[in-house]
């Protein structure tokens, strides 16, 4: 049936990379070329078992394969973690708005990420790198519980530290003896002087509690609510603005999001829960 938004495209898991104890990256090749904008999400189906929404962590420039970095959290993600290479899956989408990269041009792009929230950020980061000259600066502040919990360790502790036009700081809530970066919550490594607040956008992605306190701190620094871009995680089912699951106020996160500016949603109840 043509134009059935519930029908996934057949795809296959071709590689699985261990990121941390609870997090793996799945490399997936769809049967057909698949295009998305960075920050959009797809529904990944494990046939016969269930589906769940994920934002690809790979660059949209690669239309042949996509990567999903997935934390073991619920039933579908646990089953995915037990899968091997060669597993057939389905993907529906892409859904939602994604990051408005063109609006970021000429500005400082301030990226604050935590834990598995670095997954969508990686895709964004790779997209920014492709046209790094368009942005005034790219400033990253990433955190994780312990050094072991960082995902993309090879990139983060290696080449990403030395990129032209990128200012990168890392912090772990608890360090170990080999840790050479900061210690403490990600909010501790944010500073009013990181970017030009009057000409910056901030992208925040991480666990809800981290997003909440980071946002409060950014507001205190004087960032306008409309410059703070939040990737909202909500219960999703249809992905097409019909089933009602993902509502924040009048918005459907699947359709009007998953990226919102803080001023769009701050008046609604319980946005951080």
């Amino acid at each position: 049936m043509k134009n059935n938004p519930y029908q996934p495209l057949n795809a296959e898991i071709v590689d699985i990379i261990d990121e941390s104890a609870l997090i793996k990256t799945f490399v997936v090749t769809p049967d057909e070329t698949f295009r998305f904008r960075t920050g959009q999400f797809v529904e990944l189906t494990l046939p016969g078992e269930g589906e769940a929404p994920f934002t690809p962590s790979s660059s949209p420039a690669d239309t042949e394969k996509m990567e999903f970095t997935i934390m073991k959290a619920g039933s579908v993600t646990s089953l995915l973690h037990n899968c091997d290479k060669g597993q057939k899956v389905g993907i529906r989408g892409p859904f939602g708005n994604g990051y408005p990269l063109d609006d970021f041009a000429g500005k400082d792009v301030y990226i604050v990420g935590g834990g598995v929230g670095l997954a969508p950020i990686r895709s964004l980061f790779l997209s920014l790198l492709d046209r790094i000259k368009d942005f005034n600066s790219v400033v990253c502040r990433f955190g994780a519980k312990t050094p072991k919990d960082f995902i993309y360790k090879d990139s983060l502790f290696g080449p990403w530290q030395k990129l032209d036009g990128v200012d990168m700081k890392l912090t772990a809530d608890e360090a170990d003896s080999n840790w050479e970066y900061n210690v403490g919550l990600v909010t501790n490594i944010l500073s009013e002087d990181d970017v030009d607040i009057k000409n910056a956008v901030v992208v925040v992605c991480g666990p809800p509690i981290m997003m909440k306190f980071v946002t409060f701190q950014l507001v205190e620094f004087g960032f306008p609510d409309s410059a703070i871009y939040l990737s909202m995680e909500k219960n999703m089912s249809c992905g097409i603005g019909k089933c009602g699951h993902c509502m924040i106020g009048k918005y459907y996160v699947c359709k009007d999001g998953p990226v919102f500016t803080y001023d769009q949603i701050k008046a609604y109840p319980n946005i951080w829960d």
Partner: protein
Amino acid sequence: METVFISKLKPFLEEISKKSDLYIPVKKAEHWTFNRYNPDEIDEVEFNSIRTCLPVKEFSFPPRELAAAFPEPLEAKQIKPFAVFGLKECDLHSIEILDKVFYEGEFQDPFYIARREKMFIISGDCTQAGQSCFCNLFGGKGFADLGFDLNVSKIKDGFIITEGSQKGKRFIGDNPDLFADAPDTLLAQRDENRARVKKELEEKNADLKFTSKISEIIQGSQDSDVFDIEAQNCIECQACTRVCPTCHCFYLYDTKKPDYFAKMKMWDSCMRMAYAGVAGGANPRKVLGDRIKHRLLHKFVYFLERYGIDMCVGCGRCVDADAGGIDIREVLKKLDEEKKQKKTNQAEIAK
């Protein structure tokens, strides 16, 4: 719009049933439900006085259906034309609302649309105001002006049929023997009935007069205790959302069939605890009162902002179905009362 007269329903409906499946209202205890029409089983079709107790959404949005299959995708399903007799004005209004959800926007729901387009709608004027009806709050009056293929109005010795679409017009044109002219005297009878029912509705709901718009009442009452108080009576049966003709929450789930994997689309309810929960454990509406509030915000604030109409038609089905005794009319009244109170208090403080 052309109008014609028939003295009995059965020959008319029988003709309809020759061309397509037909569903008709039947009375069960004090309620009306839809049954598949079988001319051999009944002598005459009853004319339902008010709406059925189950919602009409079932015809285009069934409680559960196959939405996708692996690894071979679904073939487009051939839906046979079907007709439904006995829909009321509020039902047509609810179809208008669901059409917005499933037709509009970047993505359409092919299953809803396939059924909707094969549905021949024969509506009927209400002959009384039901116990829990309050459609007049949403512009209802007991008879429909549009949204039907044919409309039936009961009068003393028969029925007036009005065409509402090209399909309806064609049916009348194709069956001249079934219909007689409808002289003005009969139309006057119809209009009298309509005026009587409209008045009955207004009188019945005379005390349901609010000082502000419903959207403003709900919008302004987000910190009210009323939702948590109502929650004490709610037993989370979810009946309100199932019988509601405009509630359209659903979820997709995956399952294994003998020779393929299936993705099913099934009704869901925002009153369910886990409805908005995510795998990580977060849930913006863990508290039942918050879910009741969200349902009303969705119906009267969010939907209105997005689509320009309320997501309630005042059919009262949720009032009839509610095992816990939550009455949406009473909730609105209480919230309006609170709002009035707040205003007076503020005025006094200002003095």
